[in-house]
């Protein structure tokens, strides 16, 4: 499959490693020390490039940042999640309590 070229000026996201595990601060917990400090930022691509290549972008504050191209028009993927059956009866429980006690709102 031919690599898709993303055009200069496209809205993209880049990634780079800020600190390698060996460079992490002394005061971080052991599990955090085992992994790098990573960074993602978005901006306009300064030149044609394909995903995975090293690129420069211009962010919305006009900063030039270098990193690995990871996505074009990256999506927002967070959702409302599934319904939680454990919560479905909560309203009913409160209403039952109020009417049993004869309290008036």
């Amino acid at each position, binding site marked *: 499959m031919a690599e898709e070229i993303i055009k200069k000026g496209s809205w993209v996201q880049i990634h780079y490693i800020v600190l390698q595990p*060996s460079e992490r601060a002394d005061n971080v917990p052991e599990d955090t020390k085992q992994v790098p400090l990573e960074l993602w930022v978005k901006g306009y691509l300064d030149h044609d490039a394909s995903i995975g290549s090293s690129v420069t972008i211009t962010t919305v504050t006009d900063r030039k940042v270098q990193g690995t191209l990871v996505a074009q028009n990256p999506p927002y993927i967070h959702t409302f999640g*599934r319904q939680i059956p454990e*919560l479905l009866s909560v309203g009913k429980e409160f209403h039952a309590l109020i009417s049993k006690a004869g309290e008036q709102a």
Partner: protein
Amino acid sequence: MNPVFDAVANRKNEILKKALGIDYSEFELPGIAFDYEGMMGKTGYTLEEIRAIQAETNIGNTPMLELRNLTAAARALAGPGKGARIFLKDEATNPSGSFKARRAAMSCYYAQQKGYAGVIAASSGNYGAAVASQANMRNLKAIIVQELFDSRHVGQPEILEKGRISEAFGAEVVQLTVGPELFIEFLRLLDETGYCSASLYSPFAIAGIETLGDEIATQIRQKCGRDPDAVVITNAGGGNLTGTARGLIKAGCSNTQIVAASVDITGLHMASDKAFNRKSFTTGHTGFGMPFSTWPDRTDVPRNAARSLRYTDRYVLVSQGEVFYMTEALAQLEGLERGPAGNTSLTAAFALAQEMDRDQVVVIQETEYTGAGKHVTAQLSFAREQLGIEVRRGNPEEQIPGKNIIIPENPGQVKARDISLDDLRRSYCKNVLKMNNITKEQLTNNDIKFMAEDTKTTEDYIRSIL
């Protein structure tokens, strides 16, 4: 050991001074003390001026809502003559959807007055969105630095949403994996851009919240003909509590009890890659509340204007499952879909109302907008499906943060658990000695006076616990 980072860290004081324009050394007193009120006064803005500045960007005058059904439920559980009226200050109606707009307004106004081209905030939460929103109205550029992902690139859903809304307001959002080194990246960005540090903990950011306390006083007097008996405030870094309490005091509410409330996430280390996503709350929890109340000067400013122990009369904890339960109750009984911020104090207020008399008034001090990622269903789905955390109905007393989330089986199981202010004050005193590298014998009378003020106690009390 990274040469770029080390060089930035070594220039910390110089970078921060340039990025905030405040010389904190002028407030330092001999010994461990500093002139807190002098520093707050130096913000140069009166309550009237702050109100006017905030009105320019459409902040404040948020509704005070009476929660009649939740009051009725609390009365059904309370003993005879008990069950205070529960009110809620609907801060979600501010631009960007939270009380944080009040803080951001002052930081952005200050940045504009001082001629900075932009502002930078290190925030994974509502403050980022608030700074982005306020920066727009003040024609400033904004960068928001977030701690968001674990090393598997799994992002906390609530923080993903805060990133989205900050981008919606046109900010540049820099997203990092877990770790306190975020602060160095924040410094590096200040140094690179020359922007203003929109610190959450500057004197003007805290002064910005005083209008919230003042509005609560005015609205409750108008609606109830009395001062609020208790104001329950979700506590993390301490700014929310400090600013609100100062506003209430300025409005003359000398007998209003200030109650701090945090979600109990005991056992989950804040900077741990593995623990990061195992908590279902990104703020308002003990992971911030405990360290910040017992040692405020751990932030991005030399002297933190947020000093919660100065104003706290009582501190209570609630569980994650209880907050989810009460969030659902707020939606189902009052028709208000809000949170997560504010629902910690909602949960505590529901329990505390049952101890109070019927003619008394308890105020839940804030709300925030809700949405994808932030909603109860988003957080519980994430905990259950992504992390294998057990979610079930049961007795909240059996909760183990990070392992399970226990949603109460009935409203009577919602409790506010007191933590000892004496213990927090002792811990504060220990930190004073440790951080200043001194012994208790080296403390002067002036130091002890400061410590008494900083913990809302007396000099005799400080001497007795030292």
